[in-house]
């Protein structure tokens, strides 16, 4: 648990953004991992399996949030406001912009970008976590990166 909790927490936090919800999701991830440990196959690495559980749990939480929020509120706008509220007061502007840009991405691009950019996971491992081919992952990462850079350029000029 000590070995994986920090990496898993930040993976979940970047998806969910909200601190309390991320903590609950991390706890639920470990509990589910413990309860379903008999399903773990040794052909994949343990952290890959844990990432898969954490990702599924985080996406479930995001979907719940989207259902709960008002229909007239833009989900993307809501997440960007959440980023600003949860950021440290001394955080660099470019870093806050980057997180806002990530929240503007479609779900799959967001997941691929975060696992590749922050956790430096190989495409083969990401493929096992999100059930996508390596080629699709590379394409998604390329588009994600492009969109983020454009977002930052646009918002930085202002």
């Amino acid at each position, binding site marked *: 648990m000590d070995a994986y*909790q920090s990496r898993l*927490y930040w993976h979940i936090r970047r998806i969910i*953004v909200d601190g309390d919800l991320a903590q609950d999701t991390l706890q639920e991830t470990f509990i589910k991992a413990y309860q379903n440990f008999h399903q773990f196959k040794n052909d994949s690495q343990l952290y890959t399996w844990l990432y898969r559980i954490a990702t599924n749990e985080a996406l479930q939480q995001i979907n719940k949030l989207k259902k709960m929020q008002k229909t007239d509120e833009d989900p993307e706008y809501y997440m960007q406001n959440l980023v600003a509220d949860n950021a440290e007061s001394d955080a660099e502007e470019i*870093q*806050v912009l*980057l997180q806002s840009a990530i929240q503007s991405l479609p779900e799959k691009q967001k997941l691929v970008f975060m696992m590749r*950019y922050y956790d430096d996971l190989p495409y083969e491992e990401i493929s096992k976590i999100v059930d996508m081919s390596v080629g699709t992952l590379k394409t998604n990462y390329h588009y994600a*990166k492009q969109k983020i850079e454009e977002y*930052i350029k646009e918002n*930085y000029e202002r």
Partner: protein
Amino acid sequence: MKDFDLEKLERKNIYTVPDNLFENIQEKVLSGINDFDLEKLERKNIYKVPEGLFDDVQQNVLNGVLPAKKAPIFKLNWAYAAAASVALIFGATFVLNSNDSSEATGSQAAVASNEQKPKPESEIAYETLKSDLTSVENSNQTVVNQNVESSLTKAGENREQKTVTQTVKLVSKKEEAQVNEYLDSFSNSEIAELASNSTQDVYLDLYN
């Protein structure tokens, strides 16, 4: 300078400026964005994290994973339950009955002990002495003796004690009669001889 008109003055900047100033500024601004490379940006976590987060997580996970201690639950087998109930009923009945009989036995024993309760030694000595004194009187005086005895005994004594006293009294009278008969069988000379040898015994008998 009386005809000076500010409106007619040429608008000129008199400060020196570097050559191509504005071109350079525009280039710098654009290059700052255009040269932006996401890969060169430092990977940082910018979100606030509460203190002791991971300790709390570990504790909560352990609480969620470890089974709570529960009281053992036994499956109720109706056959065993019925057998236990019957055994309980019989056992309770037996215990209650044995208690009743022991109580009855105990009360009987208490009555018997009250009846057989030995009299104090002083009372027995007194009665013996009194009987000796009255032994010279005839046997018809038994009723009189009883009256005297009842007047001498304490007023607070119960009826059972009187009955016991009377029994003792009758027994002692009978013994006296036997002793008298036995003594009558001796001649005067034999009695004198016995008396000379057993003076001390007679005295002892008085106090027994």
